[in-house]
């Protein structure tokens, strides 16, 4: 991946949420940590063009998230904190197919792509189930399938193990580890990102620490009074 934030700043209603920052993300596995309200979700949402910078520019694999929004968006998929809101149609198969509708593909191609992504995550048996019948882990896998059916190169996940029990958390963690796509994960679950290539720590809208997981997580724990 090649994501560049160039002198990017974000302001909401006169408040600076992200202070000017310049950073380039190229590693395959990147974790983002920080306290609630530190700006990490705003930062991650800029990658998908969900939040536009008030100043500066963000490019994803060379595409500007403002001037080439569609192309930039095709590069990355975004998994929201609450998969309930990620899944738009009640029946899983239909929901996954929805992501391909704007591409105006023949029905057979859509069906083949949906089946392929269901098989990939071994959730074919859930295809005709309703979202409200799925467990937390199944829902998260369904959200992954609904995003990855469009074949983005980068996956941004906002607290993917939030609200999951241990079993489902492990299931999602294993899935993330085996994804061939480049992954950026925002998480309070520090174990999840321990094996990543790089971790960014946000604090009050700034990148406070950036480096290897051991070093950044240690600093985060020390700053917040937890045992390293």
């Amino acid at each position, binding site marked *: 991946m090649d994501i560049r934030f160039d002198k990017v700043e974000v302001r909401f209603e006169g408040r600076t949420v992200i202070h000017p920052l310049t950073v380039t993300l190229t590693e395959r596995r990147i974790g983002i940590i920080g306290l609630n309200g530190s700006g990490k979700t705003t930062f991650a*949402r800029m990658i*998908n*063009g*969900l939040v536009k910078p008030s100043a500066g520019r963000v490019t994803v694999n060379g595409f500007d998230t403002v001037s080439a*929004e*569609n192309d930039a*968006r*095709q590069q990355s*998929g*975004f998994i*929201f904190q*609450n998969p*309930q*809101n*990620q*899944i*738009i*149609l*009640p*029946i899983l198969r*239909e929901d996954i*197919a*929805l*992501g391909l*509708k*704007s591409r105006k593909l023949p029905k057979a191609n859509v069906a083949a792509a949906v089946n392929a992504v269901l098989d990939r995550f071994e959730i074919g048996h859930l295809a*005709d189930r*309703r*979202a*409200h019948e799925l467990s937390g882990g199944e829902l998260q896998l369904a959200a992954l399938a*609904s*995003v990855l059916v*469009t074949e983005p190169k980068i996956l941004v996940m906002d607290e993917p193990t939030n609200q999951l029990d241990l079993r489902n958390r492990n299931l999602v963690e294993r899935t993330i580890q085996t994804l061939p796509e480049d992954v950026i994960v925002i998480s309070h679950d520090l174990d999840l990102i321990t094996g990543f290539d790089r971790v960014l720590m946000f604090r009050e809208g700034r990148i406070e620490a950036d480096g290897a997981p051991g070093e950044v997580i240690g600093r985060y724990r020390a700053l917040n009074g937890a045992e390293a």
Partner: protein
Amino acid sequence: MMRSLHVDGDSFLHRLQPGVKLTALAIVSLCLFTIQTPAVLAIAAIIGLAGHCMLRISPRQIWLRLRPFALIVVVVALFTAILNSPGEGLTAFFRLAALALFASLVTATTTTGDFIDVITRAALPLERIGLVRAQDVGLSIGLVIRFVPEIVSRYEAIRDAHHARGLKLNPISVAVPLIITTLRSADEIASAIDARGIRRQK
């Protein structure tokens, strides 16, 4: 938690093309408004109710599906009876009941995805003359259908929270959290639609 108005099944109505069902519903609805005889409208309502037996769901589930608009039907019929005449009230009751029952049958036997496809196709002529984007129209209708049961679920959660705290339900204490949570969820779903490229920018 997202629910669905669709009921799984393999009945004749499930197999019927969604476009045919929607066209038939439109024609039947128009006919219901031209009929003035309560007995004929009552028969139509009975047919609509009998159609629900094809769904193979329990009478309680049928009632739960119909309950949200049952109150509206009764209130409109009562006002019509008081302001006009009891006969017209009866006519209004059977007409609206039949209309709601037929509409419920169509939503029960048509998936949201099929609704979106049909409405999108129907809006294509409008897109050709530059009035709308057909995909947006289809998606809007699909989202309305998606949100109806969700709003009911939210209302139930707020009602339970009131009961748990020993509070009485009142319109403001129910409406405010219901509107706020629904708008918040709508905002997040709009972001998901953008993030997934379902509604691509021009």
